[in-house]
């Protein structure tokens, strides 16, 4: 039986998606000023530890290890759709077992990472995970380290496509149509500031494609 809790996390752009399916479709190249600045910040020295919370991307691994960094991959969205995490919510429905999720995922040392690629996951994650996940990452980041995130603007609808983000170069991302997760919410700038309130600073970059780029300093 497919738990109903997850049914609302799939869909988007009318595509069918199975586990980790890469939906066929043209990749989109996207210039990114925010990402360029992120790369500048992590290019000052080698041997940094980079955390990528998106889908496994050979391009990202190649790029980051090519800069001489250690690379840690953890697909938090895929982990969040593990059917074993579904528990009753007490109202006859179901929800996600947050404690079990964090027992099994994102188990890092304090201050382990020098930089994080968060992509647009906050727009797609199940609601109970969003804030605890941001708090968990805060603990795992070193003071002064940088997080790169993307947020949809208010013009995006629930059928906004879900993409894998592949690094094409220091200032270009390649968007690859992927498993059809459904957009869950839209954050405005104040929401984003609130989400990262424990971090030291936030810098916004507005794109022309209903996506805001955000650089967050720990």
């Amino acid at each position, binding site marked *: 039986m497919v738990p109903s809790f997850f049914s609302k996390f799939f869909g988007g752009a009318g595509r069918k998606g199975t586990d*980790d399916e*890469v939906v066929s479709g043209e990749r*989109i*190249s*996207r*210039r*990114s*000023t*925010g990402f360029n600045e992120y790369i500048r910040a992590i290019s000052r020295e080698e041997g940094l*530890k980079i955390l990528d919370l998106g889908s*496994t991307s*050979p*391009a990202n*691994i*190649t*790029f980051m*290890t*090519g*800069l*001489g960094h*250690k*690379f*840690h*991959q*953890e*697909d938090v969205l*895929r982990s969040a759709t593990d059917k074993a995490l579904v528990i009753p919510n007490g109202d006859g429905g179901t929800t996600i077992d947050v404690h079990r999720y964090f027992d099994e995922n994102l188990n890092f040392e304090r201050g382990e990472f020098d930089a994080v690629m968060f992509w647009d996951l906050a727009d797609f994650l199940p*609601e109970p995970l969003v804030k605890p996940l941001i708090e968990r990452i805060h603990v795992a980041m070193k003071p002064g380290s940088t997080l790169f995130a993307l947020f949809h603007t*208010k013009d995006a*609808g*629930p059928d906004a496509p879900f993409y894998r983000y592949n*690094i*094409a*170069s*220091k*200032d*270009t991302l*390649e968007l690859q149509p992927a498993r059809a997760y*459904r*957009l*869950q*919410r*839209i*954050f*405005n*700038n*104040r*929401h984003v*500031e*609130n989400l990262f309130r424990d971090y030291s600073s*936030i*810098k*916004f*970059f*507005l*794109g*022309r*494609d209903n*996506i805001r*780029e955000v650089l967050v300093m720990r």
Partner: protein
Amino acid sequence: MWKSSRKEDEAPAPAVEPPMAPPPVTSAFVRAAEPMRDSLRSGEVATIGKSVVVKGELSGSEDLVVDGEVEGSIALRGQSLTIGPNGRVRANIEARNVIVHGRVDGDIHATDRVELRKSASLSGDISTARISIEDGAFFKGTIDIQKPEPGTAKMEPRPQAPAAAASVPVSTSTQGSLLEPKKF
């Protein structure tokens, strides 16, 4: 889908099995993936077939194909290890080259190269000199690329692709006064 995979399994059999007197363990072996066939033909590869379950320490000085289950540790210093599409390994691995088609839960230390093919699923840390990951592979863990030999050029990022959307910095002005994000 099932039929075609059976055909793949059966197709290479004549190339590696003598028709008259196959060794008794051959029936347990599987040759399910095209990339595994060349190494099998060489005749110098040990194989753990898909119905075989091994618990404990595996070590050796010849190449190994694992298409069954291994739990424990695998140490093939200077040799190659291939985890076949049916392979399920819960072990730390040491080898010269490691090619993964199946599933691995454990750390991999390869002195030369690690390849994760598109059907691969790896939960564990990788330490190696070179790595290749196919689109579709799943990986959860840390990759530590060992320093290349002196004189080896550092890998450079790919050239910049044409832009479909540009972005410019903006101030942190707010878009609204809602305390919670808009939900769908």
